Each structure stands twice: as structure tokens, then as C-alpha cells.
């Protein structure tokens, strides 16, 4: 770790000011950022913790939407969404291990957009709205490739609004070492429309499998996916699995998610 200054504001306004300074960076649960700093792969001048800001904490349910404030930990999100959006609660409750779930946050996860992270799949499959201190961004616009997002410098995610689907399920096939998603598929059905978001598989990060969505349109059954094949082109191949394997797993996990809805 290199030396840095540290600030822990208690209001969003103060955080915005602090983050406007050059080379300052937001710190949420630190589950990604702290290891990065320890390995000396980042060198921010200042870290601004978002964890003491009351306005960034908690889960609100209403009007067919579950709204998770950005600095809500996975544990708190799992508890808050359990009654209204069980698939989201289950996703949050299966991230990492208890230590990670008690520190890591939904805002940190989305801002980081790790290509194997779970939350991006839920956001994209539900068509969530990512709210920042400046604007509202739809999930379809928010994710811009592996570790890439539409966030500008110093822009802070304040909350994420997840429309609650009529039915939803997340199937995560764990990478054996990290236990992030080797492939994770989030399926959400709204009426006769389905959205299918895939994480872990693509070199471009989370994506919608539109062919699967079309196949499921009006016929939301596992069998509807039978004839589909996902092309391995552009998918990740590494020591844990080839692109072909990930393509195959995507189909299997999508089928299981539909069946479990």
C-alpha cells in the first residue's frame, strides 16, 4: 500500500466535494479496492469512505421496485430484499463469504463491474436504474465492458432501483478458486417478456443474451432454450474453463434459472 489521505464524510454533499479533488477515490466496502491498494496496483491521493453516510444505507420496498442504497452491504441487502425480491436476496446472500458480505456493497460491486460479479447480472436482467449524485442511468447504458461503467470522475452511485419481476432466478456456477461466477445467469420475467443477463462469461463483462430472451418470449419454459447455442466467440477462456465451456454453461444455467422461476 502507498500512503494516502483518508476522509469519512457523514453527508453526501461532503463526499461530493471530497471526491471532486484530483486523485481522490471512493471507498465503500473495500473488498476490491483494499486488495488492489495492498498490491500497489492503485495509488490514490485520498480515499473517501462512503460508509458513514446515512442516506446511502438501507433497502426501501414499494411500487414494484426494490431500492437498495449504494453503501448497503450484501448482508443488509439480502435481509432487506428477502420478502419482496427473493432472487435478489439470494444473490446477495451467496456473494463471497460472510466477511465479504458484511463489508462489500451493491454500489461498489456495480461501480467496479467485475466481469464475474453477481450484482451486474441482477441489475441488467431487471432493467434496474442506477441513480447517481448527477443523474439516473439505465442498466442497459451503465455497463460499458469489463470493469467499465458510464460513471464519470467523482460521480457517486447513490442507489439502485430494481424493478421487481413477476418471477426471477439467479443461477451461479462458481469458479472453483474465487467462487465468483464462472458463469452466472439471472433470468427475470415481467409478464410474457423475459430478460436474461449473463455474467462471468464474456470478455465484455455482463451482457444480455437476447436470443434467449426472444426464445422465452411468450413461452417461458426451459424447453424454449433447447435449440439455442451461444457462440463462444468473445467469451472468456482461462485456466478454469474454455470459451466453449462457458458458452455451454450459459445455456445450462439459463435453463436451470428458467426452470426454477
Amino acid at each position, binding site marked *: 500500500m502507498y500512503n494516502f489521505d483518508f476522509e469519512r464524510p457523514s453527508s453526501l454533499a461532503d463526499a461530493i466535494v471530497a471526491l471532486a479533488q484530483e486523485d481522490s477515490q471512493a471507498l465503500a466496502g473495500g473488498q476490491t479496492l483494499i486488495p488492489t491498494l495492498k498490491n*500497489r496496483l492503485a495509488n490514490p491521493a485520498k480515499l473517501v469512505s462512503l460508509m458513514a453516510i446515512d442516506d446511502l444505507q438501507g433497502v426501501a420496498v414499494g411500487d414494484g421496485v426494490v431500492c437498495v442504497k449504494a453503501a448497503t452491504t450484501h448482508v443488509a441487502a439480502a435481509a432487506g430484499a428477502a420478502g419482496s425480491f427473493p432472487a435478489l436476496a439470494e444473490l446477495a446472500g451467496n456473494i463471497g463469504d460472510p466477511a465479504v458480505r458484511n463489508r462489500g456493497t451493491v454500489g461498489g460491486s456495480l461501480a467496479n463491474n467485475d466481469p464475474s460479479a453477481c450484482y451486474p447480472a441482477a441489475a441488467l436482467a431487471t432493467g434496474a436504474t442506477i441513480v447517481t449524485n448527477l443523474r439516473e442511468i439505465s442498466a442497459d447504458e451503465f455497463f460499458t465492458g469489463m470493469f467499465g461503467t458510464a460513471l464519470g470522475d467523482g460521480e457517486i452511485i447513490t442507489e439502485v432501483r430494481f424493478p421487481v419481476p413477476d418471477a426471477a432466478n439467479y443461477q451461479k456456477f462458481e469458479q*472453483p*478458486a*474465487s467462487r465468483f461466477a*464462472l458463469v452466472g445467469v439471472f433470468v427475470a420475467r415481467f409478464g410474457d417478456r423475459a430478460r436474461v443477463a449473463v455474467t462471468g462469461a464474456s470478455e465484455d463483462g455482463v451482457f444480455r443474451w437476447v436470443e434467449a430472451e426472444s426464445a422465452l418470449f411468450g413461452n417461458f419454459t426451459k424447453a424454449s432454450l433447447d435449440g439455442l447455442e451461444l457462440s463462444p466467440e468473445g467469451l472468456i477462456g482461462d*485456466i*478454469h*474453463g474454455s470459451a466453449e465451456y462457458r458458452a455451454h*454453461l450459459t445455456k*445450462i444455467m439459463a435453463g436451470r434459472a428458467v426452470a426454477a422461476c
Partner: protein
Amino acid sequence: MPKDFGVGASTKRREDVRFLTGNGQYTDDMNVHGQAHVHFVRSEVANGVLKSVDTSAAAAMAGVVRVFTGADFEGVGGLPCGWQITDRHGEPMKEPAHPVLAQGKVRHVGDPIAAVVAETAAQARDAAEAVSCEIEEQPAVTDMKAALGGGALVHDEIGSNLCYDWGFVEENREAVEEAIRGAHHVTTLELTNNRLIPNAMEPRVAIGDYNPSTDESTLYTTSQNPHVIRLLMGAFVLGLPEHKLRVVAPDVGGGFGSKIFHYAEEALCTFAARQLKRAVKWTASRSESFITDAHGRDHVTKIELALDKDGNFLAIRTETCANMGAYLSTFSTSVPTWLHGTLMAGNYKTPLIYVNVKAVFTNTVPVDAYRGAGRPEATFQLERVIDKAARELNMNPIELRRRNFIGADEFPYSTPVAVQYDTGNYQATMDKLVDIADIDGFSGRAESSAARGKLRGLGVNCYIEACGIAPSNLVGQLGARAGLYESATVRVNATGSVTVMTGSHSHGQGHETTFPQVVADMLGIEEGQVNIQHGDTANTPMGMGTYGSRSIAVGGAAMVRATEKIISKAKKIAAHLLEAPEGDIEFKDGSFAVAGTDKSVAWGDVCLAAYVPHNYPLEELEPGLEETAFYDPANFTFPAGAYACEVEVDPETGKVDICSFAAADDFGNVINPMIVDGQVHGGIAQGIGQALLEHATYDDNGQLLAGSYMDYAMPRADDVPSLVVDHSCQTPCTHNPLGVKGCGEAGAIGSPPAVVNAVIDALERGGHSVGHIDMPVSPSRVWAAING
């Protein structure tokens, strides 16, 4: 009836009180007054010419005390290899220099180039980034076939990457060839024994200290064998005599072999402390551990098993390439040879065996002994090829094994690979396994798995291991550059309590509990009256340390011998006190009695008399009650067992779940059944890790791809089922006084083939004729095999 104290009792581990309450004293917990900290600059490329190292900027940075480079070690010895192998043609192995800091070349990612010593660890790390190294990168060689086939050279001066080409038993080569040619059936299997990273919970740490007024050096280090480090570093690297060099290995948080070896960081810290006249401390980060701790396994093997028409084994031939990495680590050369070739007979009567091993240099971290060391590699190939043969011959794999077992009445049994098994009863352990694993109930369980869309498989295998490696004069002939005895001093204190100084070293094995069980039993006193000291060359007799499941078999035996001497002397004192002839004294339950009378004297009174010798035969007997024994065993011990694993495979994803695992072991006599259970549990967990999860892979440039826990998969609690462990089959060792065989490595040796045999069985039953899948049997590999 289980005993509640002494030998055979499941006494709770007394050391756990301090380990579990945070009161352990690990090397990193120690801080020496005035210490400086060192950070190593390490090569980021796998192969390259080291043109220059510029330390000037670093040396000028805040807090920097000194920057050492390879130039500081000219004239200082390199790290030695402890075992010389003689090849098939009678030539000694190639033994390239292994400098403390790189000189002229870097040979693997992690090779240390410079050591920055500063006031704080953070300053050392900051300054390390300012050391600039000019390295002309060269193509790396990581694959053994490429290394032997004219790829880049790891050591230019050798002219090839071959360390040795070993044949064993060379005289059998022709006969084996003939037997294979004429056999009714030959089963051939090519496989890889995957490279592993040991991952002890405690990373390595070294603190060098120096006292200029006495010219004495002290090294505190995370070692399994402080005396071995003192000898290797003192005699071969730094030229320090033993009386000026003390090595202390305090509490050590796991080793699994990786802390046997003498490492460059230990020599650097000791050397730097002498140069700077102050203590110098180094603590490895976990990332550093991945690229500097000696790795394990990494064999590529072809094995052939020849059988007659009834399934009797006729001959075995195996050809292995063993990866040495970039340098020869301390015992690296013995692992694929004497610890591997001699085990190729397994539990079976195979008349002819020939083992060929080519040891190969590559641009990777050095490879050395890791829990089991050579024996897992032998067991895996043998037990996999037997399973494959059973399938090819349409025989039951258990029956095929039983048919070829060495019979219980055939011991001592001399194998064609130069060892003599003293005792064993392989049919009995297999009977026990069939019972505890409920093998007969398998088909019912397979049906219920099938109903859930899963393929269930059963894998069974046997293993034999050679523990308590010995005797010294034999291993000396085989190339060992050390003796392999063990030592103990038993010091009886004036009021009757006992301190045992042992050359064994406990780093998780529970010696502080089990050793007192033995001594207390012999002396008829309470276990709590006996304490163990180990890990400090200043107060323990010269010992060879702990590895190879040798502590109780060799170290325990030394302790028994020393205790026998104590009893013998104490009887003389008692005879004097009781005014009776020595021959009439009987010692039982802590009391010395004159046979046939009610006259007796208690243990405590005899001890007191030894130290307050007012009424004492001073003309004939020295006062005091302290004895030392060195024990050099007559033979190895041969623990053996039979293991069974059941798995479910998800045919859609390739994921393997272990449903059950049973182990029937014969460890001879058992001192503490609970601790033995724990040793087997841990070993099996590691074996499951090897079989399903762990893989230290390199890319073509010599970069470690699984360089952190994000990619290197360690077994976790939910990867390991509840284990059924039994060690009631006991054929005591015939040549050590405790009749013990050792249990530390069995689980890691016996479990990988059981898991892989089970996966292959599941797939074959499911109609997928896959033959073999290399470890780790990961979901993607299973899926690829099914869809191959």
C-alpha cells in the same frame, strides 16, 4: 475400552490452548531489539540475463540501511542440495549453483535479485521499487518435454535441462521389457501428477540476529528442522561453525514439507545481520509464498502394467519426467527417485519392476517434498493403472487388488524395488474398508443419484508408504548427504517432573501431547508431569526434524531409548535406597519395589535422591537423572491402507461432488487415536484438493497463472465430506520400540486415486468412455472429457 491416559488415549492437544487463544509464538510474533526489515526485489521474468542492478536510487531513500545484491555473495557458498543421485550410467546428477541472490541470470519469476534493508518494512518496500534491474529477457521453458527437446536452457553451463536420468532397478530393465512383451495383457496409462503449492497457513519468516561481542549468530525461522538448517546454512552457505550459530524454529503454522528446505531468505537475513550488526527481519507476503515456497509433485508419467490371463501382475514399467524447477531445492532430487521408485510395488506381488525418472530443469519455482513426497506420485499411477486394467479385463477392481496382495503370512516381504516390508495385512484393511464404506450398498445409492440426474461412481484404492526414512548407512549409500536418525534428551527434574528435549519438530502434529503420553506411560507418572521442548538448536540435541511421517517412529523411538536409560539408572538408585540387589527391583506404576516384598520407594523420592545425593552410591553412580539417546532405525516403516470414495458427477456441468470418503489405515500401534484421526482428515482434505481443485499452472512465458487464491483453489469445508476413518487394523512395526508406523502423510497419499477412480467410474457407468482425466478433475475438464 479406550484408555483415558497414556499410550492409546485420545488426550486433548495441550498446545491448542495457546494456538486457539492467540498465545502462540510464531516467528513473525518475535521482534528483536533494533531490528531492520528486508524486502526482496524479485525477478518478474522467468528467464533472462541479469545485466546490471542499480541500487543507488534505492540506497538514497528514506530509512534504507543497505541494499544487497548477488555481488555481495561472491565467495559465499550457494544453497546446497542434500541428496546426490547417480544416474543410469553411473554419472552424478547435474548440480548447478544456486546463489543466495541472483548472479548473472534470473531463472524463475520470484528469483531474488536484491535485498533492501531499511528501518521499516514499508520503507524497504518503497525502496525496492527504486532498484532498477537491467534484464535481457530470454525465452522461458516451463514444459518438461520442451525442456528436454532442445528448448531454452535454464543453466547454460550444463548444456541441457536434464538433471539426471535414473534407472531403478537398472538390472531389471531387460527382464521387465521381456515380461511386458510376452504378457497376456498390458494396460498403459499416461498421466500428469499436478503441481501443487503447499500453502501452509503461516507464510515463511526469517529473522537474522548477530551479537558482535560473542560473534554469535541466531536465526529465527519457520522451519521443520532447525538443526538441518544450521548444518546446511552454517557449513555450506555462510561458513559459520555450529557453536556460533543458533537456529530457532518456534511455533510453526504448518509446513507440509515446504519448511524442510533451506531457503535463500534465511541465509540473507543471517548474513545481513552480521554485516549490519543488527537484526534483520523478513516476512513473506502470501503472494511471495506462491512464487518462493518450494512447490510439490509435477510429474508426467507413463506406466505400463503387464498381467497374465488370470489377472496376476507380471511386471510394471514406469517412465516419469519430474520437474525440478529452476534450482535443486534441498531434498528435491530424492523425491522422484528413492521416495518414489521404491514404492512402485505398492501392496502387491509384482515380480518385476523398472522405474525410469528423468529430472528436468525448467524456469519455474523449485519443486521439492510436499506431504507424501514421491509416494503420492507412485501410489497415484499404480492405483490408477490397476483400475484401468480391471476395467479393460472386466474384473472387479477390488478383486483384482485382492488377487495380487502380498499375503499376511508373507512378511517380511522383499519387493523388487529394494525395500523390505516388515508387516502388513492388506486383506484385513480391505475387509475393513468394504465394511466401513458400505461398498455393498453402492448400487442402491447409485440408483438414487440417477433419479436426480447425477452419475454416481465408486473409487477404491490401496496405498503403501515408507515412513521414518532410514537407516543412515543405507541412505548414505543411496546419496543422502545427511544421517536420518533422531535424538532425545530426557531430563528428570529433582522433584520428578520430566522435560524431554527432542530433535523432532512439531508444526501441527501435536508432539507436545503425544510425546508425553509415551513417557508418562513408561514412568508411571501423569502426562502433565512431562513437557516437550523442541525447535531450538541451543537446547535440543542434534536432530533431523519432522517430515516423512518420522516423528513418532524415529523421534519417539529415541525418546523411548532415553527413557529406558533413565529407568535403568533410577533402578540402581532405588536399589541403593532400598538396600536390595538391583536385579530384584521392579518398576511399576511409578514405584520401585523389591520383588516379593512390600518394600518400595516412589519415583519422586528416587528423583530427589539423584539431585540431593546425600544417601547415594556416589562411587558407582553419577548424580543427576538425565539421558540422551540417538536412534537410527533398522528399516523404514510401512503404513498401508485402503480408501474408498463415492462421487456424484453432474453430467451437464461436469461438477464433481464427493458424497462420502472412507479410510481404513494400518498405522501399527497408535499413541493418540484422536490426533491420528486429525492427521488422516487433514491429509485427505489435501488429497481432495489435489484431485479436484489445486493446480499451479504456468503460461509459456513462465508466469504463474494461479498466483493467488483468486485462481489457486484450496479445498474448503464444503469440498470435503464427513470422513469415515478407521485405524483398528494394526500390524505393529517390528523394528521400533513403540511398534508405530507413522500417520502424517497417509491421507494425502491414499486419497487422490480414490477420488479420480470414483470420477472415472461414474463417467464409465454413465456411458462415457473417458479412460482418464488428469488432476485436478475440474468441472471444465470433466465436461471436456464427456464431450471429447
